[in-house]
């Protein structure tokens, strides 16, 4: 009986599915339950009311989303040319280049962030919004370059030649052929940069020396220093973040497989 079960290889998936349900789905459901209950376990929407009544919390939320959007835009502006130049290079160098762009990620990101803070100190730059944006772009730029580079690299050269044969100049070829074909990579890049920046909590503290609070830090505090009394509120905030994440991943839904392939 058991041997029959094991022999059917599709059954090999069930332990993993069970684990995912228990350690991924159930915990997410728990966030929902905590968000809609009070400390006594009674149903309430008080946690959300509390969030919308506190202008400070709402402002933090809007500010975090804005910062994440700006970071993502800067990463596109800086990352697209980098990916393009890498993809257009001769055959051997891209491997070295792409390696050079991943290598920094092997140094612990908190330590890198702290070193960035030191750089700002050395040049006597203030630690504020500028430092925050710089640090975030610095941490997540490789996540934008990679997916774009991957899609650019896969573009069939004959398409570019065809475009030139049909009379397009280089600029037209770029705008009408290369950019549209690379959009899936840009979408994955947007997701891979936006999601971690909107939810970050440690980086902002270190980069601004607690001057700027982001939504992630707000959530973290409700589970850390606030003690058990803040958990329900924190769960409500987490649920709001989950909604943002869900919306973003729907935005790039067609390209989920693309992300998967790259990872």
């Amino acid at each position, binding site marked *: 009986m058991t041997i029959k079960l094991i*022999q059917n*290889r*599709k*059954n*090999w*998936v*069930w*332990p*993993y599915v069970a*684990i*995912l*349900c228990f*350690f*991924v*789905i*159930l*915990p*997410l459901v*728990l966030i929902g339950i905590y968000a809609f209950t009070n400390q006594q376990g009674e149903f309430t929407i008080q946690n959300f009311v509390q969030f919308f009544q506190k202008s400070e919390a709402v402002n933090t939320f809007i500010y975090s989303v804005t910062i994440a959007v700006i970071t993502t835009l800067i990463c596109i502006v800086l990352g697209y*040319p*980098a990916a393009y130049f890498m993809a*257009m290079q001769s055959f051997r160098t891209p*491997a*070295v280049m792409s*390696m050079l762009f991943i*290598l*920094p*990620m*092997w*140094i*612990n*990101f*908190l*330590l*890198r962030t*702290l*070193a960035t803070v*030191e*750089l700002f*100190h050395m040049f006597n730059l203030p630690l504020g919004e500028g430092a925050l944006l710089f640090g975030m772009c*610095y941490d997540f*730029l490789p996540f934008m370059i990679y997916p774009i580079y991957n899609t650019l690299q896969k573009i069939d050269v004959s398409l570019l030649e065809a475009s030139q044969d049909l009379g397009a100049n280089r600029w037209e070829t770029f705008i009408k052929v290369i950019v549209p074909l690379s959009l899936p990579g840009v979408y994955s890049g947007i997701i891979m940069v936006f*999601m*971690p920046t*909107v*939810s970050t*909590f*440690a980086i902002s*503290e270190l980069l601004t020396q607690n001057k700027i609070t982001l939504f992630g830090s707000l*959530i*973290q505090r409700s*589970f850390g220093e606030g003690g058990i009394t803040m958990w329900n509120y924190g*769960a409500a905030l*987490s649920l709001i973040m989950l909604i943002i*994440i869900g919306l973003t*991943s729907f935005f790039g839904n067609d390209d*989920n497989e693309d992300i*998967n*392939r790259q*990872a």
Partner: protein
Amino acid sequence: MITKISIDRRNIWGRVVSQGYLWLLLVVLYAPILLIIIFSFTKSKVLGNWTGFTLGLYENLFTGYDLSDQVRVDPNLYRALIYTMVIAFSAALVATLLGTIAAVGIFNLKQRYRKGVMFLNSIPMINPDIITGISLFLLFVFLGISRGLVTVIIAHVIFCTPYVVLSVMPRLTKMNPNIYEAALDLGATPVKAFNKVLIPELWPGMISGFILSLTLSIDDFGVTFFTKGSNGLETLSTFIYSDARKGGLTPELRPLFSLIFLTILVLLIISNLRTSKQIKK
């Protein structure tokens, strides 16, 4: 002739601009790392304050004792290093086994179910680490499990396994499905067929999944932060975080990460040389 020259000139300019841009980005990207490496050769408490060249910090790191100041190097640093390694290797090992078995299962599912399971598989990858951390934190509290080494390893397995599944899947699509059946027909038990047929075929995917898991686990901060509990368990990430919040990083972190960086650099160069040699052949 004229057109050719103009094209060439344009190419040179194009190359200068593109190369220049890439190198400029790299310089910015590497500046903080260089700063860490440079200041690992001086003994100041703070990064950015040069007090003369010395290998003192490296000595401290290896002996665990600062001779000139007569103080011990924070023992928590070594504990954090060991915990980081223990967690990373056990999580990566479990994730690789679980992910490989799951990938074989997913591959043999009908299209419809496969999509469903792949969606489930993508949730831990899409979830930000703060959400993964908090949701698992609530689960462990709900179940009354006290947090510590085991809960951190479980959490790391959860966010690493999806990547293993994704690195093993392409190997399965390339593999001839009949080989495994043949092994069974020839009398191998499923376990034996798994060891002798599937594992060797899937090995490269498993290795890259394992390495990816190691990287993710070592670099993780958010999930560890919420699942480690308050019994003094620290990984390098959480150690650095609490260190930075106390004000002032342990100086020995500089040589430690310089060494880690150099090791990775050497490993990457070696693997790069090997693959380029293979291409030449």
